[in-house]
């Protein structure tokens, strides 16, 4: 006998407390990233790598020349251009998100079908 509740129109459930907390936290996290951007006017958001090398030359008292160059920089014969670096970071993010989304989707469907115990 088919379960009547699955055939009927789904009634709207009030948002669970967990969902609300997660949404609020996500908003807080987004604010954390955006607030420094807007409040620190004119600040150069350089990477900490440059800052680190500056710090070292400050402590040492003279310019420090690294004794090895990264593989990619050797291959392209110079420093990695800023845009290409952004591209590669995006690719990295994309690969990671792709993996997460694939498995997450699988879990959601598995649960929906109610076949959690089967080897799906």
């Amino acid at each position, binding site marked *: 006998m088919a379960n009547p509740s699955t055939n009927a129109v789904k009634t709207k459930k009030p948002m669970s407390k967990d969902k609300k907390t997660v949404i609020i936290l996500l908003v807080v996290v987004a604010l954390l990233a955006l607030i420094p951007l807007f409040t620190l006017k004119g600040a150069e958001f*350089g*990477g*900490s790598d440059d800052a680190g090398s500056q710090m070292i030359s400050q402590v040492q008292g003279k310019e420090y020349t690294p004794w090895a160059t990264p*593989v990619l920089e050797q291959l392209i014969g110079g420093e990695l251009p800023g845009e290409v670096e952004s591209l590669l970071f995006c690719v990295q993010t994309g690969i*990671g998100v792709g993996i997460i989304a694939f498995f997450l989707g699988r879990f959601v469907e598995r649960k929906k079908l109610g076949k959690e115990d089967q080897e799906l």
Partner: protein
Amino acid sequence: MTKKQRWLVSASAAFSLCFGIMPAAFAMHIMEGYLPVGYCVLWGVVSLPFLIWGFISIKKTVEENRRSITLLAMAGAFIFVISSLKIPSVTGSCSHMTGTGLGALLFGPAAVSVLGIIVLIFQAILLAHGGLTTLGANTFSMAIAGPFVSYGIYLLCNRMKVNRKVTVFLACAVGDLFTYLCDGGGTGLWPIRRKTAAWPLRSSNSWASSRRPSCLWPSSKGFCRWSSSSPLKITPARK
């Protein structure tokens, strides 16, 4: 101890760890060629036993439960994603987070070292971020030290029966901060040995103030992890 007292102790411990320490340098990943050869080899040798342990731990986890491969892949992908994002912080520089806390709480800290080194190799080869020479040092700070601290705090808070959400938050947040600390210590240690300048005073771009807001990042991550792990119905590897 009452519940409130326990909470107070754990919160104050985390606080003092976050704000009471003033290390010198503050690079996220140590750049290629910025550590002398001896130190590179040293850090590599130090990281190796942890990696072997991690490999064995992963093998054991997978043998116990085939489904844990997917969760392991997701934890690894999480590290991948999070460490690629440059987030601006309060002092005007950007930083990457590590994301190793999740894996540490789910699989134990040893397994995360293997995941971390994969991400580091990818970043070193394809992105020129971090480096192959400094792989040992970066692995130790990001994939070994951080997760171990995360796991330690998780066990400590569990022992003191702190609320689960707070536990995960503290574990991930402090673990991440400890990674920065180790990076700073690792980078800062060798030039300062030569010149015995006062270590805390040299930190012009003060590490602690730059990390203060970004320690909330791991906390919210931490909660998202907690809430995401419940529907998957998988409890952390060790009790």
